[in-house]
């Protein structure tokens, strides 16, 4: 037997506690904006989507960089060309994904009769701008986490995914409310 439940708990707990504290912060922002979210529930549907896409893209980018660093075709240097290529493709995938999913969310909301007076174009614009801002931040965090952990002798495979998803969850909610303010929604 190589696994022991006590070791699993001991190794898992510290990172989970940090993540949970940050996520409670995200939850308190939602509580503060509860009135707006209940009034326009299409954004309640959107929040898990905005965060899931950014988390996945950040994790894929991090995993690719980690493999590159381990094998040696990526160097932990901010001028690395291979990293730049990966970064640009991640941004493109993100942009396209948000476009498609924004349309699907709008259709779901139409079906549930909760689009309120939001036009399709306005909603897609809000999601794409929020998503694009978020992916830029998440991609940079992913690169930095991968490079810093690699330089310190830690395995980037273990570090990138939890860091990216936790920070992405908070930033996704913050960006959504900033963009909603820009569009004058819910004021």
């Amino acid at each position: 037997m190589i696994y022991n439940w006590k070791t699993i708990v001991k190794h898992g707990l510290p990172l989970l506690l940090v993540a949970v504290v940050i996520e409670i912060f995200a939850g308190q922002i939602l509580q503060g904006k509860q009135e707006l979210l209940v009034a326009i529930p299409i954004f309640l549907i959107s929040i898990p989507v905005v965060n899931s896409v950014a988390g996945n893209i950040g994790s894929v980018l991090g995993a690719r960089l980690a493999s590159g660093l381990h094998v040696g075709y990526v160097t932990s240097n901010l001028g690395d060309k291979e990293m730049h290529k990966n970064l640009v493709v991640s941004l493109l995938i993100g942009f396209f994904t948000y476009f498609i999913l924004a349309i699907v969310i709008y259709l779901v909301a139409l079906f549930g009769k909760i689009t309120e007076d939001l036009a399709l174009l306005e909603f897609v614009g809000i999601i794409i701008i929020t998503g694009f801002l978020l992916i830029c931040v998440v991609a940079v965090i992913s690169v930095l986490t991968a490079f810093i952990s690699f330089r310190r002798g830690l395995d980037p495979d273990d570090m990138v995914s939890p860091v990216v998803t936790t920070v992405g969850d908070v930033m996704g909610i913050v960006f959504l409310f900033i963009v909603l303010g820009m569009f004058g929604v819910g004021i």
Partner: protein
Amino acid sequence: MYAKEMVKQSLPLIIFCGLGAIVAGSTLSLMTDLFYEIPGLIVVIPAIIAMRGNISTALGSRLGSAYHLGVIDSENLWSDDLKQNILGSLVLSFSVSVIIGILAYITSLFLGVSPDPAQLILIVVVAGIISGLILTLLTIGIIFLVFKRGYDPDNITGPALATFGDMITMACIFGSAILMEVLL
């Protein structure tokens, strides 16, 4: 060519996970009445989802490594190593759930919202444990099928758990909140 491969391999999966998140989000949009009746409920949602994702993907990747190490296989799945892994995940789920409930209660008090502490903590613990049990069974089921077909579990468990995990967790939070609303 290189960029094309990257898009081809990851884009469909990322869109598929996004569709799963739409189901989770739609569940969230059905809970609006509960948010008024149970102050503090909306605070715990991101934390429970993050906890669940974190614990189950870690379980999936540990079982993937155990498979590569030859510690578990499809003939000998229900081994002591598997049991220790399950127990570890459930103990983590329980303790982190209690902590989420307490943290949400205390931070809410500071922000001028006063939830019922027992109700809030029970909602998180019940949702955390039940979603933990369902996702553990799902992980073992996926691993078992993947073994039978001779695929590498590392490529399958992560995305599968990311897609189903959020949906199942949201449904458990919804159910647990309704249950505690009726009971307490």
